[in-house]
């Protein structure tokens, strides 16, 4: 048995827990390839699910991190499009087979390994997700729901107490549930991830507390309350009415398919609860029968169900599992209403709580959200230990995974943790929401991967976290809150960041440092809640200082947010909470008569719609209820202010949209927006003359790959003559660096609108660094190494200029250097609402990664909703319904080079340094692009206008590349390729790094360096070339924030010209060179960071930087 298979199969922990690195670091390329062949055979035959998954992760890691750096591997290689298509369609086994066939026939190479790594990685997660899905479906209490396919088979009946009208008021009673949220006191290394609990139950444990909350208001005496409230009642209409009061959405569902349409509106969780609780069992999806048949059977003819929810003032990203507990609350409510609990009201018993938790997992899977197994902790009362449990005979997981899907909850009673300790904890802890709302999904994937790979440091960290957990529990039992703070702090600084460095960020660390400085020994420790820091967080203080700390933290968070808000994606203003421990868990009461009314916000939301109706069209219950409300608002304090709120709801929307438009129009005017040009583009887009499909070159275009022999390779890096040539040029200060920083990097923050180049995403030399800092540190290193003083330009746009200028202006403790220039972009566009045609082309014509079955359904539902939005809002019309900065866009990096000429930056640089001859232009996210003497020497030696750096293609490198178009070698954008398959025939990918000869470039604009001050000539020259460049229609995602930390992502149309198309100009001859991946790699997505830091790329970048 090979070493790796032995590690996987062994039951001896000292072998099983050995890391993959240990073997791979020693192994030769041949040994690695042999190991992958053995693992491939093994994983196909292995019946144990987790062994199979671990083998898949080993295979992924070997192809991702080890084979590509083993030297003799081929760098060239075409990735078969067919295999790529298999991956997109989730046919991972077929993709792997095809990749392996190519590897067997042509030998290992980077491209094929990247494909294999991706396929193995996705297959591993798919296998794990399938197992969780199976376990959820197989859980007793859930299974029957998948068998009920016809409304007449619905066995559930509504509790008779809910079907009886109140004799006095005539309205139906209302079942009301309140549910706390949960906080995790231990954070034992994300051990509540389902996969971990099921493979390593002995290591899966958390200390979880149910809490009431309110946002602290020093001016008001507010009491923490269970933040989640849900309501269930019968209505006299044959519909299911769902209302989310806090998200201000209500919908009447009249057909079964609507219940399963999760992304249509903001009611996905309510729909998931309807399904998971069995009211509309999952087996009815696609039944094609009317909803009324189901309601007639369950509730009675002509009657329906109304379910409402309200989350009181907890913003998204709180790390308190709000959505899971909301779902659990709704499920509990629906179970009570359908006699699935022993009692209609009061608290649940342990079995019922477990069932609610199991159904909540099902609901989360259905609605495409996710959480850990501790997240429904709010259903349980007070403090509890939640631990993984080994699967036993009778469990659906038995024989498949070591652990059960559902953990064991042990409530810590007051004998174990006394009242005094509970009070001390409440008096010491300051809970906050820092304002960041980030997607923790990638973090959870990284944790799973690292657990299964058992890398030495991370495995040690996990063991330390487990040891800390035991300490925290012991300290809690002893009433030692200071000791708890000590451990949660150590946990954050140690194990948590050892496993996932990205769990921390500059914002959080700034807060911790400031608090430590100010409160010294009165600050007992930081406590990270949930998946990552920046959102929900805890700070533990000496109780005597809690109030002061609350005040200070609010100020400090607001100040720090203001400082970083252009660089770090904040979703909302930070807040401090007041909290108390909830000793009930989820609990329900039944309101009858006048107590069966809904809260005031409900009526504020729904009444405008009801009032528009003819009184005769209202149902009897609605009329009765309106009558009661009409009295209640006069007499009941609870409804005071109701009429004012109602008017505010009915009238202010217009006011708001008017307010928004003013700054947008003003901004457009200030930025020199050209409305005539814009109208022309709009007209063309609407008529279909331009559009996504029209970006493409004619189908008759000949597109061929470029062979290795046609371009230069890395051998030039060792040519001493070229190195000397470059060194000489550097010493003469003939080179300047141009970092393209006009774009905001929408993929990096998923359209959040912060400046990517200033995002402090990685720690280097002991501090968080952003892209700008790293590029400056490289220039600093070049200055020191080559005895030069390079000029460095950052090109900006209206979106990035203020923030980058502020960052570089010398007021942030950073010296202002005359060699650093900012070239401000002047051209902007106004985003448009996309056309249905373009959206369909993007989502239906262009190959896309098909998602997991349920996620795919949700995505399709979302796409349908967005197409409806585009049609409703006006296809091809201006996109104005957002913050002004989110409505306008930079028009592509092509303009960033001509802007240097147009705005006088180049003229100034030449004036400062007349020796300047060349520019090294690169994207802000190409961290490896440096002033390499050999490459500069090569560029000079070639005597071309431009030298373009390319890299060999890997699977993720999408977006065009180097090709011969009708015989001419040039860069081609992915958008322009007539067929998606063609890209996979191109061996080289464009890094967007260019060495430019300034005089030759100017000549192509019809200019000389002496004519740079002739504005008219400059403008005319730039305009002429611009008109020859293609304009691409593209669709980007833009976030719209609303409510309390809620974010919607909308597709918008914008227009761009791209610099790579300059290579098509015959008067601008270019040379091409294949550089190493570490130099050419671009960081487009935060999910790349972990791999980037592990595959040696980060180390490489640190090596070419100087931080002194």
């Amino acid at each position, binding site marked *: 048995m090979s070493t790796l298979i032995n590690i996987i199969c062994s039951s001896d922990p000292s072998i099983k827990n050995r890391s993959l690195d240990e073997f791979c670091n020693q192994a030769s390329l041949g040994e690695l390839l042999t190991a992958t062949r053995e693992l491939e055979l093994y994983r196909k035959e292995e019946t144990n699910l987790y062994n199979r998954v671990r083998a898949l992760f080993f295979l992924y890691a070997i192809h991702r991190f080890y084979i590509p750096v083993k030297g003799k591997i081929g760098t060239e290689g075409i990735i078969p499009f067919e295999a790529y298509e298999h991956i997109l369609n989730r046919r991972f086994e077929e993709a792997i087979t095809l990749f392996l066939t190519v590897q067997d026939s042509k030998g290992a190479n980077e491209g094929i390994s990247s494909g294999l790594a991706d396929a193995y990685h996705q297959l591993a997660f798919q296998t794990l997700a399938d197992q969780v899905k199976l376990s959820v479906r197989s859980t*007793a*209490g*859930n*299974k*029957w*729901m998948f*068998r*009920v396919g016809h409304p*007449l*088979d*619905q*066995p*559930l*009946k509504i509790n008779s107490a809910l079907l009886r009208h109140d004799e006095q008021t005539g309205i139906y009673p209302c079942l009301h549930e309140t549910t706390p949220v949960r906080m995790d006191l231990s954070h034992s290394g994300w051990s509540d991830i389902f996969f971990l609990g099921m493979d390593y139950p002995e290591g899966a444990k958390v200390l979880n507390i149910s809490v009431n909350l309110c946002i602290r208001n020093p001016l008001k005496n507010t009491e923490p309350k269970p933040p989640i409230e849900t309501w269930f009642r019968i209505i006299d209409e044959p519909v299911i009415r769902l209302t989310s009061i806090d998200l201000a959405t209500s919908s009447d569902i009249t057909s079964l398919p609507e219940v399963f349409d999760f992304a249509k509106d903001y009611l996905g969780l309510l729909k998931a609860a309807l399904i998971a609780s*069995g009211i509309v069992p999952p087996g009815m999806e696609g039944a094609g029968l009317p909803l009324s048949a189901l309601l007639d059977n369950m509730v009675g003819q002509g009657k329906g169900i109304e379910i409402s929810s309200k989350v009181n003032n907890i913003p998204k990203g709180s790390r308190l599992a709000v959505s899971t507990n909301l779902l659990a609350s709704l499920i509990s409510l629906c*179970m009570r209403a*359908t*006699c*699935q609990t022993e009692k209609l009201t009061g608290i649940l018993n342990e*079995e019922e709580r477990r*069932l609610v938790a199991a159904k909540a997992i099902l609901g989360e899977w259905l609605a495409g959200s996710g959480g850990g197994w501790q997240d429904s902790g709010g259903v349980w009362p007070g403090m509890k230990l939640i631990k993984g449990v080994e699967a036993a005979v009778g469990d659906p997981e038995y024989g498949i995974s070591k652990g059960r899907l559902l953990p064991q909850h042990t409530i810590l009673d007051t004998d174990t943790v006394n009242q005094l300790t509970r009070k001390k904890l409440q008096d010491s802890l300051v809970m906050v929401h820092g304002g960041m709302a980030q997607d923790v999904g990638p973090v959870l994937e990284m944790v799973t991967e690292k657990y299964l790979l058992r890398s030495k440091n991370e495995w040690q960290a996990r063991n330390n976290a487990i040891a800390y957990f035991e300490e925290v529990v012991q300290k809690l039992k002893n009433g030692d809150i200071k000791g708890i703070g000590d451990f949660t702090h150590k946990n954050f600084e140690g194990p948590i960041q050892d496993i996932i460095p990205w769990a921390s960020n500059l914002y959080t660390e700034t807060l911790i440092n400031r608090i430590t400085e100010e409160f010294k020994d009165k600050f007992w420790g930081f406590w990270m809640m949930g998946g990552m820091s920046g959102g929900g967080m805890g700070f533990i203080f000496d109780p005597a200082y809690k109030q002061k700390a609350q005040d200070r933290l609010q100020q400090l968070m607001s100040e720090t947010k203001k400082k970083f808000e252009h660089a770090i994606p904040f979703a909302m203003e930070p807040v401090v909470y007041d909290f108390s421990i909830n000793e009930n868990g989820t609990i329900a009461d039944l309101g009858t008569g006048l107590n069966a009314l809904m809260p005031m916000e409900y009526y504020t939301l729904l009444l405008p719609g009801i009032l528009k109706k003819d009184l005769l069209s209202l149902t009897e219950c609605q009329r009765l209820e309106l009558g009661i409300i009409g009295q209640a608002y006069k007499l009941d304090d609870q409804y005071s202010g109701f009429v004012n709120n109602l008017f505010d709801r009915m009238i202010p929307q217009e006011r708001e949209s008017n307010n928004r438009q003013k700054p947008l129009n003003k901004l457009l005017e200030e930025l020199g927006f050209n409305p005539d040009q814009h109208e022309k583009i709009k007209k063309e887009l609407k008529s279909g003359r331009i559009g996504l499909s029209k970006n493409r070159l004619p189908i008759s275009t000949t597109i061929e790959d470029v062979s290795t022999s046609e371009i230069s390779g890395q051998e030039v890096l060792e040519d001493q003559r070229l190195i000397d040539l470059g060194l000489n040029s550097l010493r003469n200060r003939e080179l300047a660096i141009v970092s393209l920083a006009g774009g905001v990097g929408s993929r990096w923050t998923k359209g959040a609108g912060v400046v990517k180049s200033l995002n402090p995403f990685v720690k280097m030399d002991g501090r968080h660094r952003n892209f700008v800092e790293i590029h400056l540190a490289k220039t600093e290193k070049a200055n020191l190494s080559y005895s030069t003083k390079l000029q460095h330009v950052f090109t900006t746009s209206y979106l990035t200029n203020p923030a980058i200028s502020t960052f570089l202006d010398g007021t942030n403790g950073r010296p202002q250097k005359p060699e650093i220039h900012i070239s401000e972009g002047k051209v902007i566009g106004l985003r448009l609402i996309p056309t249905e045609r373009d959206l369909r082309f993007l989502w239906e014509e262009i190959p896309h990664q098909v998602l997991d079955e349920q996620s795919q359904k949700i995505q399709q539902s979302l796409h349908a909703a967005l197409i409806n939005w585009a049609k409703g809002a006006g296809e091809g019309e201006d996109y104005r319904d957002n913050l002004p900065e989110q409505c306008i866009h930079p028009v592509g990096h092509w303009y960033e080079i001509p802007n240097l000429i147009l705005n006088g930056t180049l003229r100034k640089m030449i004036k400062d340094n007349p020796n300047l001859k060349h520019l090294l232009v690169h994207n802000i996210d190409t961290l490896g692009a440096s002033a390499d003497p050999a490459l500069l020497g090569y560029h000079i030696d070639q005597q071309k206008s431009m030298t373009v750096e390319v890299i060999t293609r890997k699977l993720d490198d999408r977006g065009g590349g180097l090709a011969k178009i009708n015989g001419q070698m040039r860069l081609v954008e992915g958008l322009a390729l007539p067929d998606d398959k063609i890209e996979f025939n191109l061996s080289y990918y464009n890094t967007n790094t260019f060495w430019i000869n300034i005089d030759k470039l100017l000549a192509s604009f019809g200019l000389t360096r002496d004519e740079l001050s002739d504005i008219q000539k400059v403008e005319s020259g730039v305009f002429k070339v611009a008109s020859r460049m293609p304009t691409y229609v593209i669709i980007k995602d833009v976030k719209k924030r609303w409510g309390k930390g809620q974010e919607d992502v909308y597709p918008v149309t914008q227009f761009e010209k791209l610099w790579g198309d300059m290579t098509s100009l015959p008067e601008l001859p270019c040379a091409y060179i294949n550089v190493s991946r570490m130099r050419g790699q671009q960081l487009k997505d935060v999910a790349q960071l972990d791999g980037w830091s592990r595959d040696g790329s980060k180390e490489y970048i640190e090596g070419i930087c100087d931080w002194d």
Partner: protein
Amino acid sequence: MQIKKALITAAGADQRKLAMQTLVDRDGNRKTVLEILIDEVRQAGIEEIAVIIHAGDRDVYKGLISMDQQIHFIEQDQPLGYGHAILCGLPFTGKDYFLHLVGDHLYVNKSDIPCAKHLVEIASQNNCSVSAVTPTRENLIPNYGTVGGKRVPRTKDLYVIDKVIEKPTPTLAEQKLIVPGLRTGHYLCFFGMHVLSPGLMQILKQNLEKSDGRKIGLSEALNQLATKEQYLALEKNDWRFDTGSRYGLLKAQLALALSGSDRDQVMAELLEFFVMKNMNSIGR
């Protein structure tokens, strides 16, 4: 062990009139539901029968049933539930095992052995309480008392009961009442016929004492019985008709007629009815 006593309950507010309804039995004789049940009981070798009736109904029954010395009527003086109705029979059953049937159900056996007779034989052989059960689809179980347990080794139709829940939801049934060997989504539901031990009466008595005037059920008591004594379920695939359900009486009558001596005549008349109805509908 010999079982000589039977207890029929017909005291429920919804039930009291059903036992008095007249049907035609398998032999073509007009009889009340109660009389048909008494016939079933007699075939099982029962000698003495007590009928628990609603307070004040005694005279009505006396006028309807041809009385003999072995039939006793016991009035349930307070409406305290099904369990209490059975407990009212305690002076009659004493320390004996007894057969129990509900007065609003009718049974039509598919085989030659009457259901009650089969049940009494099994109880006598095993010296324990036995309930007749029938596999029921999960969408119907919220209507019945349902049992969980395991098959008795080397038997085809006997189960050891370890749990009884009255009208469970499928959610609960799936957690507590799975019986190995049954088809997916099927549970063993009461057939409305039991042989019960004197131990049950003690449990009912205790439950009544603790009830604070609330109604007491039979299923809860049977669930307790399962923890104290051996308690078996006999799987029956015969027909059982709840005469109180919609068309329940009609269905029971049809089943009796179609399995009895007038089968051909009833079939012919039904056929004629259908033919005439169809011809009318096509305008002839």
